[in-house]
C-alpha cells in the first residue's frame, strides 16, 4: 500500500501549483524534494568533476557517481559493470544500435513494431541506409498490442536484432519481452529493449527477462533530466565500439593515433557526464525502492482501471486502448482535433499531451493520426482523475475555441 498523501508531500510542485492536475508523466515525471536536494547539493556542497581530482570532494563524487552503478544494478538486477550512464534513453538506444553494427551484415533484419518510439526506430532506420540492413515490423492488433504468436509469425533466420519497448508509450501495451527474448535467442538474435516506459512503473529484472540491452531515462522516474542508463550484457559490451570518443573513456593514446580504451562501462562515457544527474538518479531510485516498485505497479493499475471506467461513461470520448490493463489512456473527444481538446483541458489546469507522441507510424495501426494521452504515476489520485473526467465531459468544439475569448 502506498500512503498517497505522504508521497505527495515529497513533491514540492503540488504545493507550488495547487490547481495543477499533472497527467503527463509518460513525457516526464515530477521530482521529489530528495532528488532536488541531491542535485542542488552537488552545486552547493560538493562540486567537482569525476575520475580526475585528487581532493576529498572529488573522491566523494567518484564514490557517489560510480556507486550509483550498484544502485542501478540492484534496481534492474545486473552487474554494476553492465551499467552505462548516458544522457537519456535515446542516447542509450543509439549507443546500443551503433555498437551492434559490428555484428551485422547487409541483408540482416531488425525486427520491431510500428508502436515504437522514434528513439527505437530512427537509429535502425539510419542503419538501413548505412549498413544495408532491413527494418521489419511484427504485426500488432488494433489496439497496438503485440502477442508472442504475432512476434513468432514475423521471426525468421535473417533477424539479427529484435528492438522492442517493454511498454509502448502511446497505448501503454506491455509486450511479452521475456517470451520474445527466449524465442529471439533461439534464432541467435540480440534483444534491445526500450525500458523508458516500464522501468519507472514496474519491477524490471534484466536477468529474468534475459534481454541483451535495456535503455531508460532518469527523468521519467522522478530523476533529473539529461541522465539515462544503458544496460548491456558484459560479453557484448566488451566487443562494442563507443559512439563517442574523448576524455575519460581512453586509458592512453599516442601521436600515431594509437588509442587504448578503458573497459566498459567507462569506455562508453566519453566527456564529463551529468554528474549531478547521476547522483540525482540515485536519489530517485532509492526513493522509488522505498515506496516499492510492486506497490507502484499495483496502485497505478488500480488507478488506471478507475480512470478507464470513468472515461468510458462519457459519450463524447473515444478510447483507443481500452483493453490494456496498464499505462496511459489514449483517447480523443469525438469531432475535436486532439490539440484543440488538450488546449481546453489545459484551460481547466489538466496537463496532458496531444499529438502522435513520437510514435509516428502507429496511426497505421490504431487508425488515428493523433490522440490525447493522459498518463499516470503513483502520485496521482482518484480526485485528480475525477477532475480530468469532468473536464473531458465538457470537451466540445465550441469550448475548445472558447479558450481564446
Amino acid at each position, binding site marked *: 500500500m502506498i500512503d498517497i498523501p505522504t508521497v505527495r508531500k515529497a513533491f514540492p510542485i503540488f504545493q507550488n501549483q495547487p490547481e495543477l492536475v499533472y497527467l503527463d508523466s509518460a513525457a516526464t515525471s515530477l521530482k521529489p524534494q530528495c532528488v532536488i536536494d541531491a542535485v542542488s547539493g552537488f552545486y552547493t556542497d560538493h562540486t567537482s568533476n569525476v575520475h580526475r581530482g585528487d581532493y576529498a570532494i572529488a573522491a566523494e563524487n567518484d564514490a557517489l557517481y560510480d556507486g550509483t552503478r550498484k544502485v542501478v544494478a540492484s534496481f534492474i538486477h545486473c552487474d554494476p559493470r553492465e551499467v552505462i550512464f548516458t544522457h537519456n534513453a535515446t542516447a542509450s538506444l543509439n549507443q546500443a544500435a551503433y555498437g551492434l553494427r559490428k555484428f551485422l551484415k547487409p541483408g540482416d533484419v531488425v525486427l520491431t513494431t510500428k508502436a515504437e518510439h522514434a528513439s527505437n526506430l530512427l537509429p535502425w532506420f539510419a542503419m538501413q541506409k548505412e549498413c544495408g540492413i532491413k527494418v521489419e515490423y511484427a504485426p500488432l492488433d488494433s489496439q497496438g498490442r503485440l502477442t508472442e504468436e504475432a512476434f513468432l509469425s514475423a521471426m525468421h533466420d535473417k533477424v539479427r536484432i529484435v528492438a522492442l519497448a517493454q511498454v509502448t508509450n502511446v497505448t501503454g501495451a506491455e509486450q511479452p519481452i521475456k517470451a520474445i527474448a527466449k524465442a529471439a535467442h533461439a534464432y541467435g538474435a540480440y534483444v534491445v529493449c526500450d525500458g523508458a516506459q516500464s522501468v519507472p512503473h514496474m519491477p524490471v529484472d534484466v536477468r529474468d527477462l534475459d534481454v541483451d540491452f535495456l535503455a531508460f531515462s532518469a527523468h521519467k522516474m522522478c530523476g533529473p533530466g539529461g541522465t539515462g542508463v544503458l544496460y548491456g550484457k558484459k560479453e557484448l559490451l566488451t566487443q562494442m565500439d563507443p559512439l563517442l570518443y574523448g576524455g575519460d573513456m581512453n586509458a592512453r593514446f599516442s601521436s600515431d593515433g594509437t588509442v587504448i580504451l578503458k573497459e566498459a562501462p567507462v569506455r562508453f562515457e566519453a566527456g564529463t557526464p551529468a554528474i549531478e544527474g547521476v547522483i540525482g538518479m540515485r536519489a530517485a531510485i532509492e526513493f522509488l525502492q522505498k515506496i516499492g516498485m510492486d506497490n507502484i505497479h499495483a496502485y497505478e493499475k488500480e488507478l488506471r482501471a478507475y480512470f478507464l471506467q470513468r472515461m468510458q461513461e462519457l459519450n463524447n470520448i473515444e478510447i483507443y486502448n481500452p483493453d490494456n490493463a496498464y499505462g496511459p489512456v489514449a483517447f480523443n473527444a469525438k469531432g475535436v*482535433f*486532439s*490539440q*484543440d481538446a488538450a*488546449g481546453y483541458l489545459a484551460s481547466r489546469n489538466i496537463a496532458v499531451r*496531444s*499529438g*502522435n507522441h*513520437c510514435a*509516428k507510424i502507429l496511426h497505421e495501426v490504431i487508425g488515428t*493520426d*493523433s490522440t490525447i494521452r493522459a498518463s499516470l504515476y503513483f502520485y496521482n489520485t482518484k480526485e485528480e482523475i475525477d477532475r480530468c473526467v469532468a473536464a473531458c465531459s465538457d470537451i466540445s*468544439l*465550441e469550448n*475548445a*475555441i*472558447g*479558450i*481564446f*475569448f
Partner: protein
Amino acid sequence: MNSMNHLLDDPMVLRELIMDHYQYPHHHGLTDDPSYRHVHMASDSCIDDITVQSKIVDGIVEDVRFDGVACTISTSSTSMMTDLMIGKTKEQAEAIVDEYFRMIDHKEYDPDVLEEAVAMKNVYKQANRIKCATIGWKAMKQMLEEGEGHE
C-alpha cells in the same frame, strides 16, 4: 466604425467565425495545376501538417488553396488567409501578412486590414498555439517572398 467592424469586436461572433472556417474551410483541397507553387509546412510542429498552394501572375495573387491535417486554429487561420490574399497585388498581400504577424505578436495592428482574421487576436495568450495560427500564413509569406514562377 462601420457595423462590420463592430461585429468583429464581439467574442461570440469571432468564435463562430473560427468554427465556420474550421468546419467549412474556404479554398480547401489541392490542385494538380502545375502553375501553382506550393509550400508543405510539416517540420514546424509534429502535429499540424498543411500544404498551401498559390498562383501569382503578373503581381496578382490569383488563387490560394490549402489542405492538410490540422487543429481548429491552423485550419481556420489558413482559411481566413486564403480569403484575404486572393485578388490582391503582391504588395497588398505582403502588407496584410505583415499586419497579421503584428497582431499575433501582440503589437499595434490595423484590424480593418485583417477583416475576419482578427478572430485570431487572442492567440498570443496561448504561446504554444502561435505556431498553429501562423503555419498557413508563414507558407504564404514564403511564396510571396519567392515571387512568381517555379522553384
